[in-house]
């Protein structure tokens, strides 16, 4: 870690020198520069005390020697958190975490009606959170069961970020809907006694959180029209004024990947189409990113690169009234309270997110170090 520190210090020194670089880079660097200065001054102090220490050795002053050593230990321990903060500040950030809206797909897994009921409860919990963060929660498509459960649903969560920082220090920008909800992706398993039985049933709901370009982003993020095939119900015949059908279902296929999205619950074709575009853009983008991550070898990471969607991430054990997140190995009690908690620290997401964000940071760091190792072992190959 110390060699990494030295490297950062070196790069920061050169960055510091080029203060004339554009203001965006400057503002990105200024928290880092502050930390760097602090780091530097402590290192200088340690050096001074080390000198004192060697002097104390020479004149064999035990008391002074002990004081020096204590001081060195003290100062060194202060270095580490600063080092971590600097690391955090210079780590490449996933732009999607801050700028992207989310499309969330929830699907009932094994467990039939019970799974569907749980899906509906999860969806309600997420809606509460989104509303608390002042984001827009829009249902793109939904299939409900007659008992009030949700078989599957696609939801768009959009808006500017609501003020939740994701870093160690809160100087940075706030997380957008995607960055906030992304750790919810995976299989949520629930164990409870359903209304009509006495035995415990196990059922599952799978959640996928996909980044979607936000409304304000430019058209570059949208899929090109040429890659999309849009089908409507007016396929045959003259169309136009000739026909007055009210079937406005729209199905879009992304030709290169074969991914589809079809929406039919709006009366206007225009609205169905808009929702379908949102949904398919998110799905396609997600698939392309997953493919990229696979190529990069991110698959071994639990969180980096989106993780494995089919992995069980959480268990909701109702008899014990406990939720356990299997990635960060944290548990919390009071399921109902967590589901109703909204966006605050008692809510479903924030209870586990700090640990998960920390995990992701460590994975990112490890992968950067791995990359550096491999480039070092192949000198001359850049």
């Amino acid at each position: 870690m110390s060699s990494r520190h030295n490297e950062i210090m070196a790069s920061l020194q050169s960055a510091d020198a080029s203060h004339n670089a554009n203001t965006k880079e400057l503002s990105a660097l200024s928290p880092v520069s502050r930390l760097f200065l602090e780091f530097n001054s402590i290192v200088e102090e340690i050096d001074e005390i080390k000198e004192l220490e060697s002097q104390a050795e020479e004149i064999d002053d035990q008391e002074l020697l002990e004081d020096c050593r204590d001081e060195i230990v003290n100062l060194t321990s202060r270095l580490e958190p600063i080092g971590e903060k600097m690391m955090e500040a210079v780590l490449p950030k996933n732009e999607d975490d801050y700028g992207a809206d989310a499309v969330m797909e929830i699907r009932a897994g094994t467990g039939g009606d019970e799974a569907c009921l749980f899906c509906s409860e999860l969806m309600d919990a997420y809606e509460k959170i989104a509303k608390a963060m002042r984001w827009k929660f829009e249902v793109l498509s939904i299939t409900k069961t007659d008992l009030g459960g949700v078989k599957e649903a696609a939801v768009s969560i959009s808006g500017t970020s609501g003020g939740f920082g994701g870093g160690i220090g809160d100087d940075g920008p706030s997380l957008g809907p995607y960055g906030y909800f992304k750790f919810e992706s995976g299989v949520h398993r629930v164990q409870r006694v359903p209304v009509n039985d006495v035995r415990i049933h196990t059922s599952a709901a799978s959640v996928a959180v996909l980044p979607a370009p936000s409304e304000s982003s430019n058209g570059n993020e949208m899929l090109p029209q040429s890659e999309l095939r849009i089908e409507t119900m007016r396929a045959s015949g003259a169309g136009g004024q000739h026909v007055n059908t009210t079937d406005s279902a729209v199905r879009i296929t992304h030709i290169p990947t074969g991914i589809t999205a079809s929406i039919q619950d709006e009366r206007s074709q225009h609205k169905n189409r808009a929702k379908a575009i949102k949904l398919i853009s998110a799905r396609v983008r997600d698939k392309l990113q997953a493919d990229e991550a696979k190529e990069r070898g991110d698959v071994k990471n639990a969180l980096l690169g989106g993780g494995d969607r089919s992995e069980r991430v959480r268990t909701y054990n109702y008899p014990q009234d406990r939720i356990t997140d299997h990635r960060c190995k944290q548990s919390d009690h009071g399921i109902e309270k967590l589901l109703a908690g909204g966006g605050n620290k008692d809510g479903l997401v924030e209870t586990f997110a700090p640990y998960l964000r920390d995990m992701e940071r460590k994975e990112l760091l490890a992968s950067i170090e791995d990359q550096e190792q491999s480039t070092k072992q192949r000198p001359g190959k850049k």
Partner: protein
Amino acid sequence: MGYHDDHQDDDDDDDSTNNNSSTNRTSKKRNVFSILTTSVDLLKECKAPEPEMSACHLFSHVLLNLFPRWEDNGFAILAKILQEEEQDTADWYNDDDDHGNHVGNTQVTREQVDIYASMLERRIKKEPLQYIIGQWDFHNCVLKVRPPCLCPRPETEELVEYVAKDIRQMIELLRIKSVGSSTCGRKVRILDVGCGTGAIGIALANMFPKDVIVSSMDVSEDAVALSVENAKFVLGDDFTLQYHHPLLCSVREYTRTHLNKEEEEEEEEEEDRFANCLFEYDVVVSNPPYIPSHDMSTLTADVVEYEDYGALCGGQDGLDVVRDIVERLPEWCKGNHHDDNDTKGQRTKRPFPAVCWMEVDTSHPRLIQSLLANNKHVEYNCEIQDLSGMDRFVKLLVKD
């Protein structure tokens, strides 16, 4: 009708939506699910158009006061119930909930059944759903729809989007042009020809509330009245800031050139009519009647028996109104503008050519292109297909 008998068999039980009587087989007949499925069978038997979708749309409209959260999407929930029941034979739970849960088992009052039944009768007679329900979604609005005005079609929603794209650019160009001048940028002026329900003009005014001013016209009094009603419905009580009161006149009449100089009285009247109209439109948009007369007999009953013939048929080749519009375009789209905010009456040149967008019959783009081959004032720009892949929209440019 057979179904009446079914429901008269019911006890004269109270018309409450008391769900605790699910064990009562008789009242089970009058739940949402059974009525829905029965009505679909009935519509199919009587050869009504689109039986499943019709039932879902009409029934969800009737049930709105039971499920207010449905808003305009209730039909999709009923559609899913229909689908599920075809595959699933699960037992029903009894519970009441206003989330739309247990929809299938919700009891329906006799009054609701009667309302639904009369709607079904109309649909069996092939009346358009939009007329039966009285309103429908168009683009991002909900519009009131009444016979004989044409029910807005999805293609026309696409037309709105293409026009909107041009309008966005125009707004930007006008803004740029106004930088440094004493006045702020003026609004984009739109003319909706043959406004019908008001759909196109109102959708555009809704998209650009501060940046456009829409004028419109139709030969039908019903259309003029309905457009005003919709403008108020969608844009609010102060709609006249964005949407002028539509003119009751034809394309040919909307002119200041006096074709008939002999009849001086008429001249004066017409001059009064349009004296305050600024014939300086930036955008002329129209969904004119465009069906060729020989095609009219191929139309299905729900269209030809209920919607205004004059809103559909465009003459022999379908281009009668289109030709009239092309003739009027140079007069309508003069390039030297009065600035809305400039009291000195100065004129500034429009920083872009005026455009005319029209929805037309598939056979028309080629014909219109040759129509304009020698036209010095109006230039054919392009044709665009609709989502079904048919030639549907043409864009013309008006040269200064």
